[in-house]
């Protein structure tokens, strides 16, 4: 089944490769991946949409959690969340079909962001279901190019916080250095 996995990571170079590598190492395909800074510029959030049975996903979540640069991982699948994706659609359009296309655009509360004599470009945001439905209706027209951001997701109420390292330092803020910062005990 499809899983929506939200990963908070340190905003370091190479982190994306570490996360993506865990998926590929298990022969596990990523359907979509969206990455961006959070309210804290030192923390990024990745939203990964992937297919897999629960067992594999559980294992991947655990492995993700083991990565040193990963602050927090949560499987948002089946939770009360808001999911959105932004898509740009370029359609070959002319005077004869422009109105039909605009009808679809209005129905889905999408926006036309560019028009020229041969084509028009539509911007639409929404859940995967909405996007798929709209693309289905536009398919009979001359679809020239589709660019999707990949889904992002956010829980409606709670800030994600488990299973987290460091007792829920998931809010994205640079955690204060605890007074009892662990000494590196060796020797």
């Amino acid at each position, binding site marked *: 089944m499809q899983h929506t996995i939200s990963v908070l990571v340190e905003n370091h170079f190479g982190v994306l490769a570490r996360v993506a590598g865990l998926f590929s190492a298990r022969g596990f395909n990523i359907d979509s991946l969206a990455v961006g800074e959070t309210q804290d510029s030192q923390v990024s959030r990745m939203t990964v949409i992937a297919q897999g049975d629960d067992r594999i996903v*559980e294992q991947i979540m655990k492995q993700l959690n083991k990565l040193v640069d990963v602050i927090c991982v949560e499987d948002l699948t089946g939770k009360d969340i808001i999911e959105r994706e932004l898509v740009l659609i370029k359609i070959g359009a002319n005077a004869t079909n422009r109105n039909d296309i605009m009808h679809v655009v209005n129905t889905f509360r999408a926006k036309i962001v560019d028009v020229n004599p041969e084509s028009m470009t539509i911007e639409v945001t929404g859940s995967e279901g909405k996007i798929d439905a709209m693309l289905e209706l536009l398919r009979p027209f001359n679809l020239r190019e589709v660019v999707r951001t990949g889904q992002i997701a956010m829980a409606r109420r709670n800030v994600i916080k488990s299973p987290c390292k460091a007792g829920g330092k998931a809010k994205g803020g640079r*955690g204060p250095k605890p007074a009892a910062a662990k000494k590196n005990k060796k020797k």
Partner: protein
Amino acid sequence: MKLTGAQILIRCLEKEGVKHVFGLPGGVILPTYDVLYDSKIKLILTKHEQGATHMADGYARASGRPGVCIVTSGPAATNTVTGLATAYMDSVPVICITGQVVTSAIGSDAFQEVDIIGITRPITKHNFLIKDVRDVARTVREAFHIATTGKPGPVLIDFPVDVSRAVTDFVWPEDVFIRSYQPDAEAPGVEDRIREAAELIRSSRQPCLYVGGGAIISGAEKQVREFVKKTGIPVTTTILGLGIFPETHPSSLRMLGMHGTHYANYSVQNSDVLIAVGARFDDRVTGNVAKFAPHAKIIHIDIDPASISKTIRVDVPIVSDVKKALERLLPMVDDKRDAIQPWLKRIAEWKQKFPLKYADAGNKIHPSYVIEQIGELTDHQAIVVTGVGQHQMWTAQWYKFVKPRSMLTSGGLGTMGYGLPAAIGAQLGMPKETVICIEGDGSFQMTMTELATAAFEKVPVKVFIMDNGYYGMVRQWQQLFYKQRYSGSVIGPTNPDFMKLVGAYGILGIKVGQKKEVIPAIKKALAHKGPVIVQCKVSREENVYPMVAAGNALDQIMDMA
């Protein structure tokens, strides 16, 4: 105080308590080697970077302190890959510092440039590329912290040459804080799980303890021994767990798994409660996963949540350091000897009926005989390091380990050639101990170039080569499963004259071909002050038994010994 990146790096190693580093120099690591020249840290010059990583690994496993290697970029960095993967699979704290081309040239296919960060990403616990000289001290500190805490593992630091030459103020970071890495944070619900475990153990009638290398890493030998002493529950170990509990003790079931004892495997398969401690249900341990311990409720104590329910579903997961969990569990368990009397009797019968054994090879030398005698003559106190293959399994079966950190072997990756360099590292880490290396003629030849290191540094390792002229484990499988078609496994005709070879390095060589020569040879080797190689021409087509063929349940045992 203004120092160069290289000076800071070496200063940090000194502050971390590093006494030895393993490696060899080259282009972009020269500034670092130049500083090392004046350091009190001793450089152990190896002949190959794979040897350097295995030495650092053996050093760490034997001593419990992290092993460090410093090598250059490109081919040197790629040569560390096998050693890092070996350390990663067995959770060994190794710090590997690789040189890198100047930061401005990274990504340009410069001379001796490889993306070692990308290459080692899946085989290190973590890795770093230092791009700014101001990050050197913090990076080294974090690398040691990550390598040695939680579930330990190798950490690689890629060190560009311009960063090693750049200058900055040296500030030693006293504290390490990595917000996304909190290995000591306790998982929620551990206390409840421990109580559940105690309850299961209380109600069990056929309990069995299954202990792995995690218990040794955690330093939990006292707790494991106390647990067995208090409860009377029999204990089996994985190959990496050997020595956590004395194999000479009546409660020991010895090693389980593909080449484990009958009674260990029967005990696991017939148990009603299986207590897995610092072990990860490797396929060489479980046999057919679907048929593993079919009647057992499984308790699993492990520091790595990802090890839990990875291959075998467990009933009571306890994510915790082994030592801490056992300390909390101990007061909650009682003496079970009376309650499990019929179970103990059954196990005693299995022990009686199916002991470990090997056929008498007459005048010829059975490899098990050599290893058994080495065990006797070292009073089971030596640190034993092996290569990979038949000799490794025979060592696990016949040495009889009684103390932790005394069996160093590549259990997870199965790296042939691990033996000699790891033994050198172990000896340097534990100079007062007797270090025995048991190798096969095939495995030995993969890294025998490090004989030069043993000779030059006068590292007194005692190497016993079980020479049967085959890749023996391959031959065994071909005999059993491939109609005795020995494709690629016959190496006798390709072997060198080992005595001439070690002679060329100025190392004492002893060659034995008859059973009666074995004990005097072992005694002579043990009495010799420097390194020594004992070539044992053993009975050639012996097989390792008992054996559970791949895909079979753990109690479907082949035994023709």
